[in-house]
């Protein structure tokens, strides 16, 4: 197989001049087997699982960045929807404690965000789902890296208006509690949520997934930023044509 200098230059210049990067690697982790009736033991298992897998993700990422000369910008973790694993521990205090455990595990491992603090409530709310929603304002304001989600409807089941009804006050309280309302930026509400989702802030590890799944998102934002900086001012139409030309030569944006 032969590569000419033009081909090598084209690829190298994507990373050197056009900000091509791996925008994110998101490691989905199953936490169902961490469930324990002893809450302290449960927290300990979750901490170990998330921090161990998180460190492993970082250790494996660095050599790949060097080997391919492509930076990996974000390292994230998505866990099993927390309302499922907290069914037997559903108090606001324990939800907050679990959020802090996840936050600490992510921080200690050097993980940027941990998603999955949410519930699949498209057809109705379990007690655990309702307590999770009640805990969210404090969870989202008291933690740095924990991201939350709620699925409140589907084409099949319609909208869960009980859940929707709780969201307004929950979001308002979250905004009031966190500086610049940043807590709300760490929450995603879905209708027709997929079985599994690697995209923050609404990432979670689906129940049909194996123990761990790695998702890789190629840069969209970095390439777009490079194009915007290069062309300066432009009409939306001319910007679109420049971006289309650029994207047709670059890998498709995935995140």
């Amino acid at each position, binding site marked *: *197989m*032969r*590569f*000419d*200098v*033009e*081909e*090598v*230059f*084209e*690829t*190298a*210049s994507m*990373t*050197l001049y056009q900000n091509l990067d791996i925008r994110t690697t998101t490691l989905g982790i199953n936490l169902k087997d961490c469930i324990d009736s002893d809450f302290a033991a449960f927290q300990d298992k979750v901490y170990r699982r998330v921090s161990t897998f998180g460190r492993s993700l970082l250790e494996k990422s*660095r*050599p790949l960045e*060097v*080997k*391919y*000369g*492509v930076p990996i910008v974000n390292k994230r973790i998505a866990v099993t929807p927390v309302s499922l694993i907290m069914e037997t521990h559903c108090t606001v205090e324990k939800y907050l404690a679990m959020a802090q455990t996840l936050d600490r595990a992510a921080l200690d491992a050097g993980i940027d965000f941990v998603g999955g603090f949410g519930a699949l409530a498209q057809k109705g709310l379990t007690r655990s789902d309702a307590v999770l929603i009640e805990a969210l304002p404090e969870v989202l304001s008291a933690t740095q890296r924990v991201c939350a989600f709620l699925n409140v409807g589907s084409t099949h089941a319609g909208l869960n208006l009980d859940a929707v009804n709780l969201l307004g006050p929950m979001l308002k309280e979250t905004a009031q509690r966190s500086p610049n309302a940043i807590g709300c930026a760490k929450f995603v509400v879905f209708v027709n949520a997929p079985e599994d989702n690697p995209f923050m802030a609404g990432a979670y590890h689906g129940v049909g997934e194996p123990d761990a799944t790695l998702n890789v998102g190629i840069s969209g934002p970095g390439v777009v930023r490079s194009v915007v900086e290069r062309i300066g001012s432009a009409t939306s139409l001319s910007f679109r044509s420049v971006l289309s030309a650029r994207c047709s030569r670059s*890998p498709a944006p995935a995140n």
Partner: protein
Amino acid sequence: MNVDVDKELLFITVIGQDKKGIVARISGLLYERNINIEDISQGVMQGYFVMTMLVDLREATADLENISHVLQQLGDEMGLRVQLQHQNIFKAMHRI
């Protein structure tokens, strides 16, 4: 440039202004680390001087992190952009 699947082949891409000593200094760094140069090409692309080296790291005495670091340092010293990338990325980008 021929790519041999049995070798540990990476491309070094040097972009910037043409000047004396680029090949000599990079070759020196590679020789010190027992890295063989398989091929060298150069040209002018979009106004840039571009040199590409295909290197085999099978018998290298330094790890990738070190090689990448010293190449970056040399690039900074000489006012050049230097990029080290495994051949697989070029296969993925340019071959079906």
